[in-house]
Structures are given as C-alpha cells and as structure tokens.
C-alpha cells in the first residue's frame, strides 16, 4: 500500500514489511543525524502539532524531527491554549488545522479522536496517542529500539510489565508484536491492572500467544523488559489508583539478581517510581536510547508519509 499520504492512527493498519521499511529509513535518518548531513526533505512543509493533552517526548521528538527535515511547525500544547476551551468542537479545530498544514500530529485524551480527525481532515493525521487506546508511533519506536539493540524483533522473549489496563503504549506494542514472531510474550501486572479482556481476545485472534507470569519468572526469562507507569490520569476512581500505586518497582538489585545478562529495560517514559534511577547506569538501561531514537524514527515517519524522499 505504501506510506505516502497515509493516516497513522492504528499500528494494526501497517504490515510487517511496511514497518521494516520504516525502520530502514530510520536507520538512514540516524546516520545522517550522526554525520550532521540531514537532507531538508520537507522544506516548505508545515506540520501541525495538535497536543490537546500534555506530552514531552512525543511532541518534542516530532517537532525536532520536523525541523531537522526543514519543515515548519505550528500548534499548541494544551486545550487551554486554544478555542476548545471556549467551547469549540474538536472537529472544527481539526478542520482549521487541515487548512493550515500539510500534516497533523494529534494527541487527545478521548479514545477515537485520531480516527475521527482522519475522517475529517484531508491531510494525513498521525496519532500521537488517543486516550488509552492507541499510540502507534511509540510502538514503532519500541520495536525499532529492540531491532537496533538486538538486530532482530523475532525470536526474543518480551516481558510487558505494569499498567496493562490503561497504558496505550502497551496496547499498541502488543498489536505491533503480533505482526512479528516473538519467542514469548509475558505479561505481569497487579491484578487490578490486567489487560482488558477485549484486547486480550483481539490479540489472541491475531495469533499472539500471551502468558501471564509472576514478575520474578518474567524477569528471569525476558530479553526485553518493557516497564510502564501506572496511568494515574486514566483512573476513573482516584481510590482505585491509590490501591495499586507503588505496587511494583524495578530496581538495579532486582535486575542483577534475576534478569538475564544482556536483557534490556525499555520504558516509554515518563517514569514515576516504577523504575528506580539506579538502573540508569547499568547495562540493562535502554530507555534513554529508546527516547533518543524517537527523533530518527519520527523523521522517517514524516518523510515517508509526506513523500519527501
């Protein structure tokens, strides 16, 4: 189908081959970045960064990616800053951005916002996270990081750990993994934060075999340890959050006593207390590499979608 002009709303819309093409372009972008010789493929383009919900890494890596490629960016970083706070509908805001830009990157706290935006807008829409549903570019980045470190995505054992109920990064990562051939996909979470049944059923129908394991077993077997933050902002009931708060914490000691040598810890960031800072200086740490690769990966994405070859 090709990337040009496509909306990037849901990682399921992309084949393994398309994802591999993206990773190859990201390699090229990273090489150009390292050499300080990035071609201004998107010169003259305007990219709208419509962040209705706060974001640090996703927004700034898109902004950096756009600017590296020579594009201009417009946008906002919260609902308060725009007319939505005056009661303007989301659809009207998207219509406006559609006429002001060549591509819209969107984050919203409502599930389905990106899909609706893609229906309304004539320019491509990239989903930078919608509620607890999708975060396709994070999943692409996660797998790209794995590929960069291990040279492959297939054949590895993955432990996905933490808030499996509300974390959209988990939903998208698992959906993306279903396109590859992992050795094992293990899940570990507090009982209250288990994967939602409908998502579990969907993944199993897509051919992904999931194992629910105790944390210790998962840490022993995993090559990739994917830690997530408890998504405080998505809990309908603050008391429910208080119950699970601090229920897991990955530390240097825990990793050194259980994890395989060569295992890597990924985290979509930001972290709170689920991942101790003492892991930062160990060989397990891969989350800062992951954050750094966000720029070349998103450069590749923008370049492929806008056809700046």
């Amino acid at each position, binding site marked *: 189908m090709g990337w040009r002009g496509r909306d990037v709303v849901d990682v399921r819309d992309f084949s393994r081959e398309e994802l591999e093409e993206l990773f190859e372009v990201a390699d090229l972008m990273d090489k150009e970045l390292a050499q300080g010789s990035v071609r201004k493929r998107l010169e003259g383009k305007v990219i709208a960064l419509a962040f209705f919900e706060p974001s640090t890494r996703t927004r700034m890596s898109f902004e950096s990616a756009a600017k590296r490629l020579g594009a201009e960016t417009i946008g906002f970083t919260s609902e308060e800053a725009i007319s939505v706070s005056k009661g303007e509908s989301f659809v009207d805001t998207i219509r406006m951005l559609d006429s002001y830009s060549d591509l819209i990157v969107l984050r919203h706290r409502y599930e*389905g916002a990106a899909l609706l935006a893609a229906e309304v807008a004539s320019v491509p829409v990239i989903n930078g996270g919608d509620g607890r549903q999708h975060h396709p570019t994070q999943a692409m980045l996660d797998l790209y990081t794995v590929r960069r470190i291990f040279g492959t995505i297939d054949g590895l054992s993955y432990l996905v750990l933490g808030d499996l109920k509300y974390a959209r990064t988990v939903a998208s990562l698992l959906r993306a993994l279903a396109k590859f051939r992992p050795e094992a996909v293990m899940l570990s979470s507090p009982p209250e934060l288990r994967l939602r049944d409908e998502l579990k059923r969907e993944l199993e129908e897509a051919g992904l075999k999931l194992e629910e394991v105790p944390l210790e077993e998962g840490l022993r077997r995993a090559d990739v340890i994917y830690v997530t933050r408890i998504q405080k902002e998505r809990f309908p009931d603050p008391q429910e959050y208080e119950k699970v708060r601090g229920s897991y914490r990955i530390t240097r000691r825990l990793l050194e006593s259980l994890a395989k040598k060569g295992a890597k810890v990924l985290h979509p960031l930001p972290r709170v207390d689920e991942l101790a800072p003492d892991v930062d200086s160990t060989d397990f740490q891969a989350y800062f590499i992951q954050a750094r690769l966000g720029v070349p990966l998103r450069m590749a994405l923008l370049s492929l979608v806008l056809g700046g070859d």
Partner: protein
Amino acid sequence: MGAAKEGRMLLVTKIKDGTVIDHIPAGRALTVLRILGIRGDEGLRVAVVMNVESTRMGRKDIVKLENFYPRFEDITKIALIAPTATVNRVKDYAVVEKRPVEVPPVIEGLLTCPNPTCITRRPSEPVKSRFIVVGRSPLRLRCYYCGSEIDEATVLKELASV
C-alpha cells in the same frame, strides 16, 4: 402457523390493518414496545402476547399493532434485541409482507458508547456513534472509534431504557 392451529391458540383477535411482530424472544415484548415509543396513551390498539408456546422457539412473545408501521431505524433496534423476530405487515386481515429482521453490519447513531472517554461521547461533537457487528450469536458490537465492545445484555439495557 396454520389457521386451524392459530384458531385454537389465539389469545387475541386478528387486526385488520397494521403490523404483527412475531417470534420475539420470550419476555422481550415490552422492550419492543419501548423501542417503538409506544406507551399506551397514544390511543393505538395494541395486543401484547407473552410467553406463549412456539414450535420453533419453545416460548415467544408477539406484539400486534393496529394502524401502526414501525420505522426502519426502529426495526434495526428490534433486530438487536430480538434477532429471531419477524415483522408482518397486515392489510385487510391478511399478511401482505413477512420479513425477518436483520442486524446490519454497521449500526450508526442508535446506541451510545459505554466508554465515557470515547470521542463520540464528547459533548457538542458533531459525530454519531458507530458500532461494527463483530458477533451475531451471541451479539457483540465494537465501537468503531474507541474499540469498546458491548454485548447483548448491555444493548438490551440501553434500548430498554429509551
């Protein structure tokens, strides 16, 4: 149903012109009436037959409505909670059209997504709810926008409260 057999079983008389909704799963006739917006004070002649024997279904409900013809949209709603139902159009005491109800592959604007943070629930957003039918027996609908799934019990509850 043959005329002789019906004669023996009949609880209510035939209607002259209107609609007979037959083969409703037992106990759901009142929900069907609610979907049709019939409360009783419209002055319509309505017969409700509940939990009667049926060869095909064991027990069933029947609703007879004189001089009333449901809208297409309402028939779709009925299909969701009574997929076995047939809608018979009656003219001058005879059935002139007999149609099984059908659940369409996509259901638009009829149901509310149960997810409070689905984009279709955002106040003043010009967007209709849209559900994809992912299972018919048992019924399973998936919100096109947010992916939330609803089952027959949820649909029944929502349509019964209209």
